[in-house]
């Protein structure tokens, strides 16, 4: 019975408010961790995740690691022949010391074939490169000398690159990124290391024919082209160094937080249910149906949890507003809804014990017992 549940909560505002607050803090913790993980992983993998090639082809010995991979132009030609490949292009990737905003820093340079696979997909300002020595940089690094119009000099060379566009979430290995033409990358690599005999692409990027599944195509390329290993983009992102370790440690903390929420809600409702069993027994003796008593307790669990989720979401929004540009936190509504539903589901699961006690309550306990319905 709705009115009964609400009346009790009104009489014990502090108690229920406290629990809602505790659930709210835990929900905030969970939301914050997930947001943090997303942002952090984005710093590691953004460039690969937000480029247009659906399949990434490495040298088979590179163990799915860009920095250890070299793919020959013969191999790229062979990839182009595989059925389901619409377009293939080289990706030249390397970390260079650059001077940006007057300071020396490390930046990852990504060279791709203009209009081919590998262009950044999350452009937020400016335009894509149209000529050599033009670049799209990660928007988060704009203030660090990578804003539109800024000139970035490659240290120890006479190569300078002009930023013409900004894209979100395209950092790589927590470094600023410059998406440039393949030729610019080649020029840069040569200028830094003039004695090297030749420069090969780090990987090949592939556009699939419409309707072809990237996972299937990756398998096909690996099988048909000698000396390469192809992965679909999502798998390539997941297998980047560090991603698994970071994800796993976060998953563990997340799991713990979910367990704590479940236990807190479960114990709380068990305690208050046991405390008021005499009162509930009295109501049953007076003619209150078992189902309405069970419903009443479920309604309280629901109210407390939804309240907690709202508190947690508000805290996340607050944290988002307080967070700086250097480490932005955004409140993703989808994440809040999923996390909220899981918390509510777990809480209901955790209160099954309490609900069962209410369901099994014997109305006859009220007769002859010298008490005041749980008053004393």
């Amino acid at each position: 019975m709705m009115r009964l549940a609400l009346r009790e909560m009104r009489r014990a505002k502090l108690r229920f408010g406290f629990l809602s607050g505790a659930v709210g803090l835990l929900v905030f913790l969970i939301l914050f961790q997930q947001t943090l993980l997303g942002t952090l992983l984005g710093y590691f993998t953004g460039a690969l995740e937000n480029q247009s090639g659906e399949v990434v082809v490495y040298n088979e010995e590179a163990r799915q690691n860009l920095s250890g991979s070299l793919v020959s132009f013969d191999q790229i030609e062979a990839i182009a022949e595989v059925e389901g490949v619409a377009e293939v292009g080289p990706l030249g990737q390397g970390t260079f010391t650059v001077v940006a905003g007057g300071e020396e820093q490390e930046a990852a340079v990504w060279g791709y074939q203009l209009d081919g696979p590998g262009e950044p997909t999350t452009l937020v300002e400016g335009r894509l490169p149209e000529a050599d020595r033009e670049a799209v940089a990660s928007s988060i690094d704009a203030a660090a000398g990578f804003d539109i119009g800024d000139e970035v000099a490659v240290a120890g060379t006479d190569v300078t690159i002009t930023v013409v566009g900004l894209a979100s979430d395209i950092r790589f290995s927590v470094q600023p990124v410059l998406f440039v033409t393949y030729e610019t990358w080649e020029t840069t690599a040569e200028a830094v290391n003039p004695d090297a005999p030749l420069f090969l692409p780090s990987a090949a990027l592939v556009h699939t024919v419409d309707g072809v599944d990237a996972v299937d195509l990756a398998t096909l390329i690996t099988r048909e082209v000698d000396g390469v290993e192809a992965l679909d983009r999502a798998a390539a992102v997941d297998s980047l160094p560090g991603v698994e370790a970071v994800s796993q440690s976060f998953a563990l903390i997340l799991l713990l937080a979910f367990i704590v929420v479940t236990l807190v809600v479960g114990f709380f409702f068990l305690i208050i249910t046991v405390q008021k069993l005499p009162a509930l027994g009295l109501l049953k003796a007076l003619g209150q149906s078992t189902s309405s008593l069970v419903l009443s307790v479920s309604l309280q669990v629901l109210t407390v949890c939804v309240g907690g989720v709202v508190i947690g979401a508000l805290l996340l929004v607050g944290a988002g507003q307080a967070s700086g540009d250097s480490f932005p936190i955004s409140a993703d509504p989808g994440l809040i809804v999923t996390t909220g539903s899981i918390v509510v589901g777990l809480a209901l699961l955790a209160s099954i014990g309490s609900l069962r006690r209410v369901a099994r309550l014997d109305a006859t306990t009220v007769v002859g017992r010298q008490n005041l319905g749980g008053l004393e």
Partner: protein
Amino acid sequence: MPALEMTDVRKTYRSGDTEVMALDRASLTLGDDEILALVGPSGSGKTTLLSIAGGLLTPSDGSVVVGGEEISSLDAKALTRFRRDKVGFVFQSVNLVPFLTARENLLVVAEMGRRDAKESRQRADTLLDELDLGDRGGNLPNQLSGGERQRVAIGRALMNEPALVLIDEPTSALDTKLGEQVMELITNEVKSRSTAAIIVTHDTRMTHYADRSVEISDGVLAA
């Protein structure tokens, strides 16, 4: 039609491997506006009889007819509905829901059934006034004295206009003067509504408030 007709009702409790005979072939008929005092020493079976009459316990044997309806064969769900609609209880010790105010303790039984909300509120206010609790309606049970709680429980028992009111030792926790006041209140309220009632007591000084008194000892009713 009698309000209550119990015929050859037996009730045994099993505790461990011993059986306690709490009620032994009890037969009792209660007129539809009769007030009966049930008198007997502690442990004689008074509460057991009341619980069976009110559909809170099922008898081991015998028949119980309340307002023409045989209740000894009803299932748990039907008994719950029966208690809600037909019976008004005041349990042995004052039993109020601690997180509801005096007025809400009355309203809660009306809200269990589908009764008109406005009518229920008026009825609760009238009862509270008659029980001299007009200004205590908003108080929680722990803000009320023992006598006041007892009166709230009586009001609640009358709230759903029951055909049968069952009151278990209403004066045992009160001093003599307060006890007499409460007995007078109960009998006035019950009489003015032409409702049948059983009032359990072990105090023979209280029996003159009733139309008739029956004695019970060791589970056996004396005529």
